[in-house]
């Protein structure tokens, strides 16, 4: 590892990288030809190529968002990004067949171990494509489809064609257009009617190369009365140049279905994380976004739910940790489009060492939707004078029967709390770590235990040297 890399890594545990052994690597930069090449390489049906090209043209025309962090957004150099990198020729079903370097990386990240212990299926994506994929046989026998998105398109083109881009059209925003143009990898998950998948299924996204662009595309469909918990993790090496992660995630919960989507994003601090996540909940369906943002340079992500059917419910629990040089611009959007729909939004953020966290939320109740209820709680914790927290809540309430609660707080760690904990033997850093873990507890208790423990450890590490 170079000294420069070491400097950038600092305390980030996942900042190591493998040598780049790509089998196919596109030149840096983006053009319509690059888009067509990706589609051709993947041997896609013409309709997909057409969508990609349309999306690309829209991306080129679409101006950069004029909100969020414009300074950082405008620093993205789209010409220096690698848009496609294949590091293994096949998506393997056995870890033994995955190239050693890559396998070792996922071992270090604890994926095979977690898979054996408590997961129903795993997709491991490395750069642009999945290098490993598996699903438990019993789930497959029940008709559950869990594939990387490229295989999904090959094996189930009709389903993909029917739903792809229906929740998030490419024209939604500049980055959904970019993703639609150059998408590669991601997950396709279908749960048949009435099936409850008890063990979570996981996708892990790893960027390894410098200046990499990762554009996974995920589509999850839970048919009537089914339920599933999908878990997503992400890390990348630390480099002094920027990488771009821009995913699109579409969830569809049919009548009475339930999807929980948990994310622990821990990108290194040179990664732009600009992700569009949106779900549709039909009658009596439930969508839960459990969204943790610990790393990255700039994250802009607002998991959304369209409550389309009567009685549907949305739950968005998110945490953001903004350390030195980081901006977490996160939040939630819920659209109450039908009567008697309910939502619950909890957002927690911590800013430290000049980090900046912003909560950006939208709550909409349409005029025809009566009897809707929503509760929003936003708490920010600021650890020092240089750090910053902002809240940008928007409410569009068109129906007077709506029952809404909104609570917001900004707090600091008190010297009494620190003294109390230190008088019980905690060092100042450990005391801070405990307070921070407690602050995020409403989020961590929603995670599978293994993730919760990992996240707590991570935050404790982040608090080391935080006082000074």
């Amino acid at each position, binding site marked *: 590892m170079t000294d420069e890399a070491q400097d950038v890594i600092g305390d980030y545990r996942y900042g190591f990288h493998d040598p780049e052994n790509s089998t196919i690597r596109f030149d840096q930069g983006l053009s319509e030809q690059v888009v067509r090449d990706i589609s051709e390489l993947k041997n896609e049906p013409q309709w997909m190529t057409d969508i990609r090209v349309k999306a690309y043209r829209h991306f080129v025309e679409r101006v950069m968002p004029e909100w969020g962090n414009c300074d950082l957004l405008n620093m993205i150099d789209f010409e220096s990004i690698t848009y496609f990198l294949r590091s293994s020729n096949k998506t393997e079903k056995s870890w033994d067949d995955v190239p050693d370097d890559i396998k070792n990386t996922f071992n270090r990240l604890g994926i095979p171990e977690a898979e054996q212990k408590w997961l129903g299926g795993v997709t491991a994506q490395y750069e642009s494509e999945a290098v490993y994929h598996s699903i438990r046989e019993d789930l497959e026998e029940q008709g559950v489809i869990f594939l990387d998105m490229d295989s999904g398109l090959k094996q189930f083109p009709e389903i993909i064609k029917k739903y792809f881009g229906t929740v998030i059209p490419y024209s939604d925003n500049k980055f959904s257009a970019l993703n639609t143009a150059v998408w590669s990898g991601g997950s396709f998950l279908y749960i048949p009617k009435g099936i409850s998948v008890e063990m979570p299924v996981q996708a892990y996204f790893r960027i390894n190369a410098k200046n990499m662009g990762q554009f996974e595309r995920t589509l999850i469909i839970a048919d009537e009365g089914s339920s599933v918990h999908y878990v997503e993790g992400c890390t990348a090496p630390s480099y002094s140049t920027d990488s771009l992660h821009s995913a699109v995630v579409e969830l569809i919960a049919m009548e009475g279905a339930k999807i929980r989507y948990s994310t622990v994003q821990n990108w290194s601090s040179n990664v732009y994380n600009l992700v569009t996540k949106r779900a549709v909940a039909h009658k009596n369906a439930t969508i839960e976004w459990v969204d943790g943002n610990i790393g990255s340079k700039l994250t802009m992500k607002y998991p959304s739910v369209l409550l389309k059917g009567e009685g549907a419910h949305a739950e968005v629990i998110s945490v953001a940790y903004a350390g030195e040089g980081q901006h977490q611009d996160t939040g939630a959007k819920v659209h109450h489009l039908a009567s008697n729909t309910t939502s619950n939004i909890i957002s927690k953020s911590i800013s430290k060492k000049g980090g900046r966290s912003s909560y950006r939320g939208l709550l909409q109740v349409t005029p025809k939707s009566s009897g809707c209820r929503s509760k929003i709680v936003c708490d920010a914790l600021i650890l020092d004078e240089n750090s910053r927290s902002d809240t940008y809540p928007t409410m569009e309430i068109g129906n007077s029967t709506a029952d809404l609660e909104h609570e917001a707080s900004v707090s600091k760690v008190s010297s009494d709390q620190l003294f109390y*904990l230190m008088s019980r*033997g905690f060092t100042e850093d450990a005391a801070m770590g405990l307070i921070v873990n407690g602050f995020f507890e409403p989020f961590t208790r929603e995670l599978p235990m293994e993730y919760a423990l990992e996240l707590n450890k991570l935050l404790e590490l982040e608090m080391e040297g935080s006082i000074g």
Partner: protein
Amino acid sequence: MREVAEEILRIENLHVSVEGTAILKGVNLTIHRGEIHVIMGRNGAGKSTLANVVMGHPAYVITEGSIFYKGQPLEELAVFERARAGMFLSFQYPAVIPGVQVGTFLKKSVTSVRDEAPKGRAFRKELTAAMEQLSMDKSFLSRYVNDGFSGGEKKRLEILQMLLLKPHLALLDETDSGLDIDALRIVAKGINEVAVDSACLIITHYQRLLDLVKPDYVHAMINGAIVQTGGPELALKLEDRGYDWLDVTA
């Protein structure tokens, strides 16, 4: 009969100020292992300041004098090192730590102070026994530290920590305030257990705790200094007559 025991705490001519205001003005006090000392005084006399400055609260500045713990000058020790060396403060107003469960907090605290993680089963046994002694329900363990606790519950959690941490020096800052008589009995039992082998400094306004915890020395503090020292009879006298007869400035 008591042999001369190990010196735990020695305070010499201690002057302390908070934000520039002098609070303690020349306190002298020595406590040996196995002794229970009580400090009584009016509000604002400096009693809580004394307890906090011994534990190392950063807001209190020592302007003159010294504090020694087992012969070692305390200024060399950070707050967490004092805790690990066997010092304990039962807070008058314990801080709330939202989202941190009591069980997690206790285990981590015990681990820090003992410098090793306690064995799972042995620790659970120890914890259960201590909680039974303090009539604390198991449900306490999953609540957040002092979050939504009543005054009595907070004090019991302080005493529970003291029983687990087994300090050599226990500073109890108005631990008896706001307790009903049943809770007071429970808390007194805890103090008596720890006091057998530790040095105890109890800060209180009231005589009633002293019916249950037998002090060796009672000190009257006025305006930042100890003006009179006696046995248990001094506490009765203070309760009966107040402090004016001792107050030369009155």
